[in-house]
């Protein structure tokens, strides 16, 4: 499994252990973030969710357990596994940790192969929660800002070349310096017909001028064509 780009949050207050872990983890391409206390660890977890947490069982007393208890309260926290790092003498704390949600443990002194193996085993490889939105959810409304080129014009419509095929009947508002100069800046537009394919990824969409008056149409009529079509 390729660990590159994945992140691990290491929570420990032991400088020597920390340096060693950095060494062992960096070589595999993992991003290592570190916290020295349970409080810092939780803050970092909330801010930038890692793929896995390595938690020293002995964070000055019982703080390792505190971290686990508070992590449990966070939504969807099951998606971030916690692996404890513990010594022989910490058996009681270890059982408690597992009961509070830690998924596994690594015995100290840390063996580099076992470390990477456990990380790979527990790292969330599978799908993360996804957020789906209903048809009527106002928050999910999306505005797409598009650009295109108006290649041709006549008294009732223009041809807009763009990378989207606009649905027949869509109300639009075209912004263009040219249209402004022609006095058509305030006119609303509507897509008509079916966008015709022109060249890789681009479509010619016919855009009608809604409610154009005689005066403005005249301006277009007397427009000189610069290039022979």
């Amino acid at each position, binding site marked *: 499994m390729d660990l590159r780009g994945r992140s691990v949050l290491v929570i420990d207050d032991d400088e*020597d252990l920390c340096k060693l872990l950095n060494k062992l983890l960096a070589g595999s391409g993992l991003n290592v973030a570190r916290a020295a206390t349970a409080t810092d660890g939780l803050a970092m977890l909330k801010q930038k969710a890692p793929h896995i947490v390595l938690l020293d069982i002995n964070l000055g007393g019982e703080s390792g357990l505190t971290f686990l208890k508070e992590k449990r309260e966070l939504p969807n926290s099951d998606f971030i596994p916690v692996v404890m790092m513990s010594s022989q003498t910490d058996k009681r704390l270890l059982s408690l940790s597992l009961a509070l949600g830690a998924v596994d443990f690594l015995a*100290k002194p840390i063996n580099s192969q076992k470390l990477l193996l456990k990380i790979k085993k527990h790292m969330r490889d599978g799908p993360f929660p996804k957020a789906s939105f209903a048809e009527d959810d106002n928050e999910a409304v999306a505005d797409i800002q598009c650009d295109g080129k108006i290649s041709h014009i006549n008294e009732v419509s223009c041809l807009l070349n763009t990378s989207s095929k606009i649905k027949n009947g869509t109300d639009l508002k075209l912004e263009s310096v040219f249209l402004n100069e022609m006095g058509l800046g305030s006119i609303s537009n509507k897509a008509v017909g079916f966008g015709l394919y022109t060249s890789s990824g681009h479509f010619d969409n016919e855009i009608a001028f809604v409610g154009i008056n005689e005066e403005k149409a005249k301006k277009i009529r007397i427009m000189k064509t610069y290039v022979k079509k």
Partner: protein
Amino acid sequence: MAKFTIQVDKDLSDIMPGFLNNRAKDIGTINANIQSGDFKSIEVIGHKLAGNAGGYGMAELGLIGKELENAAKNHQKSEVEQLFRRMKDYLSNVEIKYV
């Protein structure tokens, strides 16, 4: 005790000086703690040593640390002093060969 060599992964060469430095500090602390009778602090140092030394290629030192932790836990003063001597010996005689 005679000098002895241990082989350590060359990847650890840049963090080893820091580790040894901290152990030197530990020695100072243990010394003071033995004088003051602070077994708890010695227990903590022993615990950390047990957990870390192996990772830095010093398994034997780790074992000393574990025994030191136990002895300090049980307030066994002469045991603690003996293990402290072994710890100092180890650290002053160890030579590291990076491979």
